[in-house]
Every structure is written in structure tokens, then in C-alpha cells.
């Protein structure tokens, strides 16, 4: 199946979790995640199973006003 991480496509095996996808993305903490615009707490990454065409947002802290 194919999912999208921050608008970039990523091929994953069926049954992969959000935790699997994040490990492949090699993102440096701290960060937070959302799947299809719904926030997913980090305690649920391994219980959140992805579906084809899911859109994952991984966001990090930056400067702001």
C-alpha cells in the first residue's frame, strides 16, 4: 500500500502501523503525528494501523509569533 508522509509517498506493507512509518521516516524528536488530520498520541503509534492512501503529518517545533 502507499501512504503519504508530509506529502511524500511511501510504500509500506499491508498491516503496517504508524510506528513503522515513523521509523522509516527517521524523524528526530520531538515531533507529533496526525493521520488524515486526526491527532494520534505517541502512546497509540503502535496500535494505529495504516490504510492505503492515508495522509500522515509529522510536525516539529519551529519559531513562531
Amino acid at each position, binding site marked *: 500500500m502507499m501512504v503519504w508522509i*508530509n506529502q511524500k509517498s511511501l510504500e509500506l506493507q499491508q498491516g503496517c502501523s504508524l510506528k513503522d512509518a515513523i521509523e522509516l521516516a527517521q524523524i528526530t524528536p520531538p515531533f507529533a503525528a496526525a493521520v488524515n488530520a486526526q491527532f494520534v498520541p505517541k502512546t497509540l503509534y503502535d496500535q494505529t494501523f495504516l490504510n492505503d492512501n492515508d495522509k500522515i503529518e509529522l510536525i516539529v517545533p519551529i519559531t513562531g509569533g
Partner: protein
Amino acid sequence: MLTSTDEWLLYGETFKSRLLLGTSRYPSPDILAKAVQLAQPAMLTASLRRESAHAQDSPVFWKLLQNMKIPVLPNTAGCHSVDEAYTTAQMAREVFETDWIKLELIGDDYTLQPDTLNLPSAADKLIKQGFKVLPYCTEDLVLCQRLVDVGCQAVMPWAAPIGTGKGPLNAYAMRTLRERLDVPLIVDAGLGLPSHACTVMEWGYDAVLLNTAVALANDPVHMAEAFANAVKAGRSAFLSGAMQAHESAQPSTPTLGTPFWHHA
């Protein structure tokens, strides 16, 4: 008059400084750190963006935030719907480990005017989830009252559109707001000069939040200090009670006993 104990309360937490500072648009992280060190703000605002666009600068900023040890106020900048703001706030709470949220719900991309019609429902939703919401809003009295009605313990009206530096454009409405609302009022956005900050503090506003006026100054470090001093001066003036203005001149030196009076 201003004393060393002139503290203020936000959602039950005590703050000494009445300046909140943004962290964006500075020439370098080092200059931001020095500006913060001189200004000693009550809070620093921060934001969240996709990792793919900020993989390099995010770790630097994160380390800087941790070193400065000043409470962080995450924002929902760029959100255009209640759902976007809600999801962003949840993500901010996990990343920054704080319930504070500066609620930005943009209704117009050209003026960056808040979506005044949907702001109260967004604030209501966040407050019910335990967030300490500081809503970026306009100076509209009814809007601000609605925000208080849903549980906002402070509101943050703009003085002028974000980043314009024009200073308070609607003095009448801002002063009316101060007279009518008892909650802390924080001017957020549109200030360009320390005198602007001083003016709104003289009107009785509780604090100011600014970013661009400091970050884009030729010398951001000393401009931060100038704003911190202006906020203190305005607060002290408000507490001291200003004189009434008069239409006619009134000599300050006593006239009784003026020499050479009526010699001719």
C-alpha cells in the same frame, strides 16, 4: 505606582513580566537568545510545521527553547478551521508539554484577520479539553465578551494587522474594551514602536505580545530591551493615575508674588 510585586495572573499562574515575545524572523538564533535574555519575557511563542520543511532548524530552535527556560506559548498559526486549530493544539500540547495555546484562527489571508465568527466555538472546544486558551482576536467588544463567556480567562486583541507595526488603530474600541472587560487583556499584533506598547499599557492593558517589531529592528537585542522598558513605563503610568487634560494653559510656577507684576 509600579512595585517589584506587580505580578499578574493568567489561568491561575503568576507572571512577573508583562511582555510576551515571539521567536520568529530574528537574524539568527543567537540574536534571539540575547534579545530574550535582555527582555526577560513572561512567555515565548512557538509554532509547529512539517518536519520535511524544517529538519535542519527545528533541533536548533528546540535546544534554544530548552536552554532559555521560559514558559512556551505554542500557537495555531495558519489554521483556517476549528478542526485544524483543534488538531494543531493537540499536537502542540504533546510536543511542548504544555496546556497553553495561543489560538489563531485566520479568516482572511490578506489582513490575517481572525475568523471572528468561529473563534468562540474553537476556544470553547479547546477549553473543554483542558487547554489554557489565549485567543488572538480583534478589538470587537462583543467578540471578546463571547470569548470570555466560553471560558477564556484572557483575550488578546490585535492593535493592527500582524506584522504591520502600525500601532493601535482603533483607540476608542481598545479603551472601551478595557473599561468593559475585567479579564486580562493582552495586545497581540500590530505594535511597531515601544511607544505603542507604552500607550496600551497606559490604557490599562495587562501585557503585550510582539514579535516583528523586535525581530526586524536594526538591533533586535536592544529593541527588545526598549520594549520591556516601555511596557514597565506604561504599566507604572497606569497605576499612578494620569492627570486630566485641560483645554487651556495652566502655569505650573505659582503666580502669586510674581516680580514686576503690575509695575507699569
